[in-house]
């Protein structure tokens, strides 16, 4: 923009320009106005959904900063801003084309950095190409965020970030292409509206694989089977993170309607907002009630996990459920959290923030539940999809983790772990005055 004033004289708006300069524009008809308004509305949905999901990066950062011990908080903050940055670039370098260009019912798209229409040019199609890229990119980043929480407090910085680069540049896009890129699973009729499986389970499998290969934090599981919890350093930050994620989820699920240009789509997006919220509410309340019933204390971290599990559960199908079903689907997420968290501890799988129950298990549940409310879904196809994603992600992640382990090592030394990653790798303590 040349300056900000001229515009108020009405000259800079394309809409107005189009009227003033009929030569370069097609005739203005009711249809053309409708189409262009829908274009802007759809683009708006992607941009608004996109910035909401972008903000989930802050949500994950706060959730994880709150749930690790204070000696690793700076590192967790660093990993989160680092991973979001890497995802943002890798998804341009490789991801988007791999996921969306020329998949054609197959298993992978094409290798190419993505490019957008030039500045100042009208875009083909029913929304701005760039807005779609932005929206898909933040989904990719979310997948990486899931991993960072599980492997916290013991993984070294750079190997983690390299894993993120591969995950966001290759693994997630390839996996995504199978369904959202119109690949083979889409052809089979597999359904995953906003990514219970594509985003959350993929992230969850990568996290689980990492957690197993990496091993538990020192001191968590005693030789005698005794387990020592390592409580998180700040419950309010974890709570804040959860609320930010909840907020972002309206963008995550609502934006996945992919259209907002008319009565029907706008109404559907509204339904999605409601179901997303109800599922989260169900997850919270059920996990609270279960904690009270079983343990006589209502662990707030389980309520936070319950909210997220409710959200993940509804993500595969946030549109078709009626309110009661939305609550029920989310509530099962809450049940999963309460039982899977201790179960993992029994298996000595050390998941620092509960990402595996929340994203992986609730993601599977949500995907399998789609046919309960969407008659286009088939349980068999859903199971095939879930299994295929499991197999691919576990194998691909394991290869990357093992290569990293063999080459540069992935785990901080015992001394470093004892001292905290902040002092050694970051050089900056999170709370220098309170330690």
């Amino acid at each position, binding site marked *: 923009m040349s300056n900000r004033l001229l515009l108020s004289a009405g000259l800079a708006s394309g809409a107005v320009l189009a009227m003033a300069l009929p030569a370069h524009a097609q005739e203005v008809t009711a249809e053309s106005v409708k189409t262009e308004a829908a274009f802007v509305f759809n683009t708006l949905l992607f941009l608004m959904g996109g910035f909401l999901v972008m903000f989930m990066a802050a949500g994950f950062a706060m959730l994880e900063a709150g749930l690790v011990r204070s000696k690793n908080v700076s590192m967790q903050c660093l990993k989160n801003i680092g991973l979001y940055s890497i995802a943002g670039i890798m998804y341009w370098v490789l991801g988007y084309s791999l996921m969306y260009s020329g998949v054609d019912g197959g298993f992978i798209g094409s290798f190419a950095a993505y490019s957008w229409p030039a500045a100042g040019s009208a875009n083909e199609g029913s929304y701005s190409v760039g807005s779609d890229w932005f929206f898909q990119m933040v989904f990719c980043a979310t997948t990486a965020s899931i991993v960072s929480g599980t492997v916290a407090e013991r993984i070294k910085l750079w190997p983690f970030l390299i894993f993120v680069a591969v995950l966001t540049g290759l693994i997630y896009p390839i996996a995504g292409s199978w369904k959202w890129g119109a690949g083979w699973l889409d052809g089979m009729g597999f359904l995953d509206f906003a990514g219970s499986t594509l985003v959350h389970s993929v992230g969850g499998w990568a996290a689980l694989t990492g957690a197993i290969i990496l091993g538990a934090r020192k001191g968590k599981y005693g030789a005698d089977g005794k*387990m020592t*919890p390592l*409580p998180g350093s700040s419950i309010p930050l974890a709570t804040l993170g959860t609320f930010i994620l909840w907020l972002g989820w309206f963008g995550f699920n609502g934006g996945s309607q992919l259209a907002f240009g008319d009565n029907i789509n706008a109404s559907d997006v509204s339904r999605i907002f409601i179901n997303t919220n109800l599922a989260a509410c169900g997850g919270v309340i059920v996990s609270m009630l279960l904690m009270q019933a079983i*343990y006589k204390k209502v*662990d707030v971290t389980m309520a936070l996990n319950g909210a997220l599990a409710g959200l993940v559960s509804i993500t595969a199908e946030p549109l078709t459920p009626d309110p009661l079903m939305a609550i029920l689907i989310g509530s099962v997420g809450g049940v999963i959290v309460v039982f899977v968290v*201790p179960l993992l501890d029994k298996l000595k799988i050390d998941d620092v923030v*509960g990402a595996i129950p929340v994203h992986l298990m609730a993601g599977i549940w949500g995907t399998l539940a789609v046919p309960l409310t969407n008659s286009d879904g088939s349980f068999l196809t859903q199971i095939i999809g879930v299994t295929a994603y499991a197999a691919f992600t576990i194998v691909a992640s394991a290869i990357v983790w093992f290569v990293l382990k063999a080459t540069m090592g992935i785990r901080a030394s015992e001394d470093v772990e004892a001292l905290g990653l902040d002092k050694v790798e970051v050089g900056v303590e999170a709370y220098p005055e309170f330690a």
Partner: protein
Amino acid sequence: MNMITAIIKPFQLEHVRETLTGVGVEGLTVSDVKGYGRQKGHTEIYRGAEYVINFLPKVKIEVAVDDALTDKAVDAIVAAAQTGQIGDGKIFVTELKNAVRIRTKETGKDAL
């Protein structure tokens, strides 16, 4: 001169301070400590896993007093800090060879 060191329950601090002031103590120093003793720690549950907290929050009071005041001060602490429940804490008395007030360089009794 003696140094009285008392480990008490945190909530008794204010009461103990007042009682000590009452018997003529003019200064004391306090720190947060964690105690292990007969009063066993409690079992907590974090994310569904039980664990034992061995250490309980306590407050340590250090009071340097003249010999003459020692017994009165000890009694005052006992009186103010006692709840009768396990974990009320301990009082330890050690001999003080010297005391100095930094501001004035006074030593001995005058420094307290």
